[in-house]
């Protein structure tokens, strides 16, 4: 059944930085990089979160404290019960030639998960760019270093790695080297810029989109994108360059909680 739930205690909480924490649950989730779950806090609500990692008996999500729901989960302790359904949606393709990953902010978890899977699959060359506002905001720096043949860092304030955005670094790299596939996951404006660069170099890419999601299973319509009617929760959140080309609202607008169109 599509809405089968696992009700589980929080097994571990890891503080990534001041606003991000990784939550571990002991349960089975047969998930691929880019897929997400709907997480319920009882009497509170339910929200979508990408999967950071799974193993045979546990899975993890990294969550940013950003509003009522996420601040509530930041108040929870090990042993507190939540409920999870999923995994939902489409994952990244798994190209094993020369691969570039461009990530930013709290959207890097799926890329870290992907890096792990690509290594397992014997990727030829894997290069990652990890961007954030400041050094403390960077996620999984060590992991990317271990998992990738080369891993770059960009911070807006230059506190670590290149000063600038991950897209700036991407432009630099693409001047020297080419790739079979680019995987992009970050804030939509950043992804829009990265897509422009990838397009210029005529390289195939996939992006990780976010829209307001209520059901996660293709029935409520809140995540649908115009004008193709792509149902992001089941046909995304990972979208390839051809599908993305059909989406007029990418980088422009999204629908809010009532379904109203709002500028991004």
């Amino acid at each position, binding site marked *: 059944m599509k809405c089968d739930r696992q009700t589980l205690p929080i097994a571990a909480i890891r503080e990534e930085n001041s606003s991000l924490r990784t939550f571990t649950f002991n349960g089975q989730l047969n998930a691929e990089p880019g897929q997400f779950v709907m997480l*319920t806090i009882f009497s509170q609500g*339910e929200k979508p979160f990408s999967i950071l990692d799974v193993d045979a008996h546990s899975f993890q999500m990294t969550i940013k404290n950003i509003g009522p729901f996420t601040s509530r989960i930041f108040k929870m302790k090990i042993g507190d019960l939540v409920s999870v359904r999923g995994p939902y949606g489409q994952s990244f393709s798994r190209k094993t030639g020369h691969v570039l990953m461009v990530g930013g902010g709290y959207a890097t978890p799926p890329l870290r998960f992907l890096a792990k899977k690509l290594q397992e699959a014997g990727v030829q060359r894997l290069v990652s760019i990890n961007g954030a506002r400041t050094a403390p905001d960077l996620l999984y720096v060590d992991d990317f270093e271990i998992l990738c043949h080369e891993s770059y860092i960009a911070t807006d304030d230059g506190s670590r790695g290149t000063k600038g955005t991950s897209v700036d670094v991407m432009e630099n790299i693409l001047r020297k080297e080419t790739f079979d596939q680019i995987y992009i996951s970050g804030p939509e404006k950043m992804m829009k810029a990265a897509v422009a660069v990838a397009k210029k170099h005529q390289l195939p890419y996939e992006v990780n989109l976010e829209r307001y999601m*209520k*059901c996660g299973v293709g029935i409520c319509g809140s995540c649908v994108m115009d*004008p193709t*009617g792509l149902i992001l929760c089941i046909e995304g959140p990972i979208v390839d360059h051809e599908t993305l080309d059909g989406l007029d609202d990418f980088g422009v607008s999204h*629908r809010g909680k009532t*379904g*109203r169109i709002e500028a991004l």
Partner: protein
Amino acid sequence: MRFLGKEISTPLTLASGILGISFSSLQRVIRDGAGMVTTKSLSIEPRIGHEGPVIAEFNGGMINSVGLTNPGIAEGLEEVEKFHQGLDGVVIVSVFGANAAEFVQLAQAVNHSSADILELNLSCPNVEDEFKRPFALMPDKITEIVSAVKAVSRIPVLAKLSPNANDMAGIAKLTEAAGADGLTMINTLGHGMVVDAIAKRPVLRNNFGGISGPCIKPLAIKLIHDAYKVVDIPILGTGGVSTGLDAIEMMMAGASAIGIGSAVYDHGLDVFKTIREEMEVFMELHGYARYSDLIGILEEN
């Protein structure tokens, strides 16, 4: 075939509340094989609806408590305009008001749109805390709202009824008498609760929800047949249809067209094409030339 004067290629219709918020999803459902599409029920002001989880499954169906999330009638009708700019298809605009005056106001707004048919959602079981008992259980409210709307509407009006009504024949007759051009039946069955035994809590944030899916089909078919026997207006039969045979059974019981809701959840948008093909195979095999040959041919034992 024709439904309320509109030419449609198949009786299969997207039911209200499934995807139908944006023009793009409505267009897509038409392209995927529906004959008509119904918008999410629109209210005067935008509504956020209930917090999640808003759906839960059980053996035989699902419950939902979306709670009439919608962008409001003004923005909703803009989506209908965009729909018709790109595609020539029949759009049923579903509306939901707190009283007869609001329903009239909504109908007037719809008059100024390209909507083809107006559907009055008199039967949502998910907003009882806010709006009390569904109107569809109160004969006088049905009469008041339907006749008020009919006095102003420039397009045909469907009244959407509730399976919780205890005398469907009576309700159907008075709805027709109030001037409705057709009936949509049934809305979800109120109320179901799905329990999470580990958490000792209801799964839905709103605790309970309306029941839909395969398990309500026998109820829908019985009620449609009860109504069909006493009214002359067409029925948009809805409730648990997920196969061509389901659709045919419901048409035999008296439905002129068929709404599809939960089956989209269970089987995805391909379900329209699949049901259409299954209907064709059955009709070919059993010698039915036209969809209209099926309507109401059920004989009681």
